[in-house]
């Protein structure tokens, strides 16, 4: 693959700059919180700048090909090399991770959750940033795996240290669960490596030779990857870590978790599992689709049963990632595009929802839906933002959510050749019903929390007045970009589709997609 740009350093810089920031921060006394915050935010901003530069330099006419490719010797013993690149699929997520990190940091300026220690908190976020960005650019399985796991640890500590009452449980569950998944994933990677002649871990190489593996073997390897990625997504039976993790995690954790971490799984499917093992993918697609639609309905039901706002949002993630996986499972570029768009849209919207939930928690010290009411009376702005996000999340056309949801449903009508059409059409209808349920639980949530009069305990003059204030400066700074993005992508989706479409087409060569 020829190098499309001489700026092949940008990715490396963009990925590891945060670590430099971490190094600097290590020398900042713990007491000097403001400074460490400033440094961290500065680093994130610089990283984002590099990201912007990458976007500018990105050659959109060749969005289908790998750009800024850099390759270097790494662990020659196991034939793994430091091989990175960026294409239309990676770009949006790569960039999103940078944006989200920066915004989260800004938000954290005066929202460092107890027990304080901003320095450590920010360091973790920077490390997280490296891991996330790295995962999206890695073109070598070992490298991918390293970054993939690198993400795990900071998140574990974020939940385990800064989380809610039940944090240890949640963090441990999250950690072990994902660990378990990655173990199988690693096995699958190794199997892949040996089955393709133990020559290289480079993804392009594997894509070329992966198809040659015997079908049964492919199915087994795919199974390994499937579990690894599905846990991360999370898909229906593997989702139970998510609500706990989200509920317990600090706001920042939830936002990053929802916005980026969940995408690592789906990204893995799109980038690794499906292109490398087309045969197996064909075999698995109906089952993935099945789990996806189960997830859609099931997540929605879960939401309807919730009494806790944050937990409800967490469950809605399950439903929305269901749409993403449904799109992927069709193995058509139509579906893939939808899925990729859905990933970004879900990142923006659900991230935003978690921000709001965090701010609500901070003001009311509770997320019990039945204790909340009349938010619009006390905090109109926050209330309307919540409404906006709810609308976006239930897939209202003109807002980003719709473009992940509707095309996914659409694509299910006509899956890739070789897949059972009837089955997928059934999926389509079920998914469509899911949209109604989505409207149901979100509006239900909104009606109960935002409308009506404030409940007794929080009504004016019951001692909560000083806590209950409307959106503040830092929140505005952190949220506005997301809100704008939701509208912009909703009104003009082409912005993203034009980047995704070619790349997806390349990814699906094996299916003639």
């Amino acid at each position: 693959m020829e190098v499309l740009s001489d700026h092949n350093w940008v990715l490396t810089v963009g990925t590891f700059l945060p670590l430099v920031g971490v190094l600097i921060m290590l020398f900042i006394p713990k007491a000097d919180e403001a400074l460490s915050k400033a440094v961290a935010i500065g680093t994130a901003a610089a990283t984002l700048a590099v990201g912007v530069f990458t976007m500018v330099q990105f050659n959109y006419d060749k969005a289908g090909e790998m750009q800024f490719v850099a390759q270097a010797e790494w662990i020659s013993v196991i034939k793994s090399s430091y091989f990175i690149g960026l294409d239309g699929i990676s770009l949006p997520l790569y960039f999103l991770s940078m944006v989200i990190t920066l915004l989260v940091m800004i938000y954290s300026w005066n929202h460092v959750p107890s027990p304080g220690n901003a320095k450590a908190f920010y360091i973790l976020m920077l490390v997280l940033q490296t891991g996330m960005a790295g995962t999206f650019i890695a073109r070598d399985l070992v490298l991918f795996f390293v970054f993939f796991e690198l993400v795990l640890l900071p998140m574990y500590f974020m939940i385990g240290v800064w989380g809610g009452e039940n944090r240890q449980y949640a963090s441990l569950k999250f950690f072990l669960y994902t660990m378990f998944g990655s173990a199988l994933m690693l096995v699958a990677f190794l199997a892949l490596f040996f089955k393709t002649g133990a020559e290289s871990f480079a993804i392009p190489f594997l894509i070329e030779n992966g198809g040659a593996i015997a079908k049964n073997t492919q199915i087994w390897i795919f199974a390994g990857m499937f579990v690894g990625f599905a846990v991360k997504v999370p898909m229906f039976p593997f989702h139970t870590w998510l609500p706990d993790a989200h509920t317990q995690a600090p706001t920042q954790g939830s936002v990053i978790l929802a916005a980026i971490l969940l995408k690592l799984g789906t990204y893995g499917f799109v980038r690794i599992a499906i292109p490398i093992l087309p045969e197996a993918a064909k075999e698995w697609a109906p089952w993935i689709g099945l789990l996806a639609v189960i997830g859609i309905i099931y997540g929605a039901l879960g939401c309807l049963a919730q009494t806790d706002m944050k937990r409800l949002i967490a469950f809605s993630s399950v439903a929305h990632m269901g749409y993403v996986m449904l799109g992927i499972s069709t193995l058509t570029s139509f579906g893939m595009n939808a899925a990729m768009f859905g990933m970004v849209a879900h990142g923006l919207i659900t991230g935003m929802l978690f921000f709001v939930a965090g701010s609500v928690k901070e003001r009311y010290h509770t997320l019990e839906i039945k204790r909340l009411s009349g938010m619009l009376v006390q905090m109109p702005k926050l209330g309307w933002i919540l409404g906006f996000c709810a609308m976006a999340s239930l897939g209202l056309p003109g807002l980003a959510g719709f473009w992940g949801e509707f095309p996914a449903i659409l694509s299910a009508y006509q899956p890739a050749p070789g897949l059972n059409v009837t089955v997928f059409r059934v999926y389509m209808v079920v998914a469509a019903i899911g949209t109604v349920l989505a409207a149901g639980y979100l509006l239900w949530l909104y009606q109960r929390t935002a409308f009506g009069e404030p409940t007794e305990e929080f009504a004016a003059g019951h001692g909560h007045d000083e806590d209950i204030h409307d959106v503040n400066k830092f929140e505005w700074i952190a949220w506005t970009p997301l809100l704008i993005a939701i509208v912009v992508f909703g009104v003009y989706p082409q912005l993203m589709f034009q980047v995704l479409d070619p790349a997806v087409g390349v990814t699906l060569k094996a299916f003639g997609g």
Partner: protein
Amino acid sequence: MLLNQFLMLGAVLFCIGVYGVIVRKNAVLVLMSIELILNSVNINLLAFSLRNGTPDGHTFALYVIAVAAAEVGVGLAMVLLMYRNRRSVGLDDLSEMKG
């Protein structure tokens, strides 16, 4: 004399050790099970070393023994500390990481 007989012996010991690690509650016993595992590893190492006629296996077996010694030392020290703090060596009484 087959290579496999040693390897399989190693495997059996290893699994017994694993079983012990999982089943045992008493810290000391868990440490013992770990010793079992380590020894099974050593047997493998030596078997291969004999097979390949190279001394690496010996070397690492030695290292393993050394590490094991260190591990037991620290481990038991921890057990002692734990016992001192809570008059018990039941591992499930260690609930710092409990959620």
